[in-house]
């Protein structure tokens, strides 16, 4: 019995190690590559033999349009998140708290939209956006991001709102709080974790998008960081852009990773609430 449980312990310890290696190796590799000196970039070694910050300065020098792209990415993802949270909170509140016909239709519609293949609508948007002047603009990306993140946000927020003991609001009012006080002091603090979770997931999905950003933008005006990264070219035809790509990739990834690691509990609960509970 003890023999087998010790064996099991060792087994799971090895398992843990394998999981850690699995998750971290590609990230470690891209970080290592980003520090490699241009002369050693082709040495096919996992760790850099000669480290340098050159790749990072090349990325931020401006020639590659990466600075613009980062600002676009941050701005577009933040505006998307704020709008999605506002609209989705309103809808989720109505869905969980109010009685009205069409509730199931809205939920079913949101579910259907969440399954939409983005490629199926990107062509139509490309054509319409050019006509109405949204092509290569921030709103031109914010709108599709919004429509694709609303279903997720509505589902997560509904799952969270359902758990809120709404009677507390009435109780607070009986104790003499005004309607808005009851909402601000009692309901809002209870709703914030859900709103926050949905916000993180919406931000990540907007930050992660490549297809819309690749088709619906053309210049630095609205091109986002992942797309800029995919168009990195070497300084000349003969320079390998791999170092710059790696540095850019690290810059794009690090802020999200920090956010994910700080809020890991929330993200896990959000992912499970959105997909499993529905």
């Amino acid at each position: 019995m003890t023999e087998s449980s010790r064996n099991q312990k060792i087994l799971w310890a090895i398992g843990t190690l394998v999981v850690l290696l699995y998750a971290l190796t590609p990230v470690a590799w891209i970080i290592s590559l980003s520090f490699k000196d241009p002369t050693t970039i082709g040495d096919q070694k996992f760790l850099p033999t000669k480290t340098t910050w050159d790749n990072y300065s090349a990325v931020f020098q401006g020639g590659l349009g990466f600075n613009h792209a980062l600002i676009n990415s941050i701005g577009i993802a933040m505006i998307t998140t704020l709008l999605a949270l506002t609209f989705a909170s309103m809808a989720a509140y109505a869905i969980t708290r109010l009685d009205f016909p069409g509730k199931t239709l809205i939920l079913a519609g949101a579910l259907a939209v969440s399954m939409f293949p983005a490629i199926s609508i990107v062509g139509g948007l490309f054509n319409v956006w050019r006509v109405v002047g949204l092509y290569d603009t921030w709103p031109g990306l914010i709108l599709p991001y919004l429509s694709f993140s609303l279903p997720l946000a509505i589902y997560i927020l509904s799952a969270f709102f359902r758990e809120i003991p709404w009677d507390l609001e009435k109780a607070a009012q009986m104790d003499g709080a005004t309607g808005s006080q009851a909402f601000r002091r009692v309901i809002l603090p209870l709703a914030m974790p859900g709103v926050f979770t949905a916000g993180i997931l919406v931000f990540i999905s907007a930050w992660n998008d490549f297809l819309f950003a690749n088709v619906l933008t053309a210049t630095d005006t609205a091109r986002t960081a992942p797309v800029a990264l995919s168009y990195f070219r070497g300084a000349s035809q003969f320079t390998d852009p791999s170092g710059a790509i790696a540095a850019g990739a690290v810059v794009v990834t690090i802020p999200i990773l920090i956010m994910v690691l700080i809020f890991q509990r929330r993200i896990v609960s959000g992912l499970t609430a959105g997909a499993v509970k529905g």
Partner: protein
Amino acid sequence: MAVAAPTTGTVAPTSAHGGLTDRARAERKLAWILCAPAVIVMLLVAGFPILYAFYLSLRRADLRFPDAGEFVGLSNYVTVLSSSTWWRDFGNTMFITVISVTLELALGMLIAQAMYRAIFARTAIRASVLVPYGAVTVVAAFAWRLAFDPTTGFVVAWLNLAPPPLTTHWGSMFVIIFAEVWKTTPFIALLLLGGLALVPEDLYKAAKVDGATAWQRFMSITLPLIRPALMVAVLFRTLDAFRIYDAVFIVTRGANNTETVSILGYLQLVNRLNLGLGSAVAILIFLCVMIIAFIFFRFLGASPERR
């Protein structure tokens, strides 16, 4: 969000009015107002474009000849469905979908078990598993592409791969699949972990006493009980994998015969500016996704709405 919530707290007079009380009527109105922005955005930016794509797919819409836009019926669909490119790309897409979802399930299950049973470093595992989830798909694809790249890739040197994988069809396919699997397995693992947490520990103990092996316990206790979580995870991942675009674009741009249906649609729309054919491809992808979803709902009992 401070959105009109206080109004619901107040009690409206309950006088009957055409079957509905004033209060119920006011509640309906408020509900519709609250839902309106979300519904309008989804209708305008998801519902309308898909109808528009269907309209375009029935016309000759080539941006190089903007004036020649007549109605051509289903001929764009005939062109697409009778081309070997579509079927090759469809085959590639199905291959990538089936292999990645299978690998993700197997790996995801192992990772979920490891997270569930981890004796030490529980938080460390969860944190590290979230790293691939947080990595942008483009970055994940670059990490794998550069790892297998003939000039920079350490994997090529370590394993002495000749010819380098990215110069062959199957090699490229697997680099794409690795990038996809690496990035999305954590999502599956987390969903499965949510399912595992619902399995009562006593069941395992009882089965152990009855002499069931670990494999038997997994097959007859774990699997049936986490089935709902499992099916939802598989449904979402299958739909997602079928739409694969980012990883292919970054790793090969469709070279070495690795084009997928999404890449085909993109190339028709953006490079060849043929909106008619591109839209036909887009609608066909949409239909495929709907069929996959239908099969899951109808025959495999996946139901995101009722857990």
